[in-house]
């Protein structure tokens, strides 16, 4: 077998991932700040006022990227869970649990901003639209994951149980989405459709994409930062942590 350029399994060890994550997170945090500054500037000062929705539409610059991230992070969690179950690596479970609070935060943010946008546009804080409902259920799935992993004392068992929950959840997310969608068309509750939004100006799209990139970088930075804390907490009895503390003293 030829030697690969980078030995990926080396970084599956918490001891060698800890310094790598420490080097990486400031860069991602800086990128997040830069993208967010550019994105916010475009969304507040460059993007034109919408002739139908007025200034209120600017909420979508936060709302849409937050919804994207909340769904994407759940998939990433499921990916790490599958790796964790397949290879029995410790770091994968830590990554999953480091991502979960950020995902839940984005799901909540997306619901909250959605309500703020819905009140002036639809005249209601909440409608039982398919997307809103499945986003709410996604938040419940995040909360279930967090609650389960928090309730189990043994971290290894918590990781594995959490892995199964997120895998079962990721299979269910599309089923839930389509069932809610069909349920919605049967009831014909919401008369407003988000899919029939007017075509966006290019600057609006740019603002949204920049904000999405900012949220993406923020998630990576925060997950890396949090995983470092989790590594330290779990490996506190290991010698390398003791040596690390000696060096910093």
């Amino acid at each position, binding site marked *: 077998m030829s030697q690969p350029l980078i030995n990926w399994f080396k970084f599956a060890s918490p001891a060698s991932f800890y310094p790598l994550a420490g080097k990486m997170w400031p860069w991602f945090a800086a990128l997040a700040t830069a993208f967010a500054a550019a994105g916010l500037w475009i969304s507040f000062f460059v993007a034109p006022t919408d002739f139908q929705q007025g200034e209120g539409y600017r909420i979508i610059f936060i709302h849409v990227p937050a919804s994207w991230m909340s769904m994407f992070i759940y998939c990433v969690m499921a990916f790490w869970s599958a790796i964790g179950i397949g290879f029995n690596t410790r770091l994968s479970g830590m990554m999953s649990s480091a991502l979960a609070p950020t995902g839940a935060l984005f799901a909540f943010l997306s619901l909250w901003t959605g309500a703020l946008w819905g009140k002036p546009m639809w005249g209601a804080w909440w409608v039982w639209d398919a997307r809103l409902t499945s986003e709410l259920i996604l938040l419940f*799935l995040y909360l279930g994951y967090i609650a389960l992993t928090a309730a189990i004392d043994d971290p290894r068992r918590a990781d594995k149980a959490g892995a199964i929950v997120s895998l079962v959840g990721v299979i269910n997310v599309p089923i839930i989405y389509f069932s809610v969608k069909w349920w919605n068309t049967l009831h014909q509750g919401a008369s407003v459709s988000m899919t029939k939004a007017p075509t966006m100006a290019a600057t609006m799209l740019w603002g949204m994409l920049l904000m999405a990139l900012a949220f993406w970088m923020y998630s990576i930075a925060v997950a890396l930062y949090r995983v470092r804390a989790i590594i330290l907490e779990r490996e506190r009895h290991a010698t390398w942590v003791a040596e690390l503390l000696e060096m910093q003293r």
Partner: protein
Amino acid sequence: MNAFVAILRRDLLLAMRRKSEMLTALFFFMIVVSLFPLGIGPETALLRRIAPGVLWVAALLAAMLSLNRLFAADHQDGTLEQMALSPTPLALLVSGKVLAHWLTAGLPLVLLAPVLGLQFDLSSRALGILMLSLLLGTPLLSLIGAIGAALTLGVRGGGVLLSLLVLPLYIPALIFGAGAVEADMAGLGAGGHLSLLGALLALGLFFAPWATTAALRIALE
């Protein structure tokens, strides 16, 4: 296959020896359903309109009540470990236990539902569809619930946690189950909803015992 039948008989026998647990869940179902007219008012048209949803939500909650005892007793006295060690695949034994759970917790709900449906002035045709949808849906509830029961085995505050984990996953069953009755009452035909419910059941039959087994092995580590 012998082991499957043996474990089914054993679990049914145990359930028969402890009838009160089974009956408690049934009475819970009846009480929850009866509370809705008291809270909403006795208008027949309104009650007929909400009946499928109310009955289904109550069935969901009642099926969830009895999930705790699915593995807990076997876990406490070490039977579960012996099952995991036995040469028979654990998934098969788990399927037997889930089937026993459905027979003692799901099937009674199916049989009781039409009686409660009468209180809501459902037509006999709607009652038939309701029973059919519950017949397809309650096994799915047992199958998905088994995953949650296995994951929360021996965990602090397991009961509440179980509901938090399992209820979001029950939503498709609720939508298609209650939707079947509503669609039929609206004259749209229940076929589509029932087919989807059947498809979900097929998926659950295949995947759920497998996921439950994985979760049990984690709990037994």
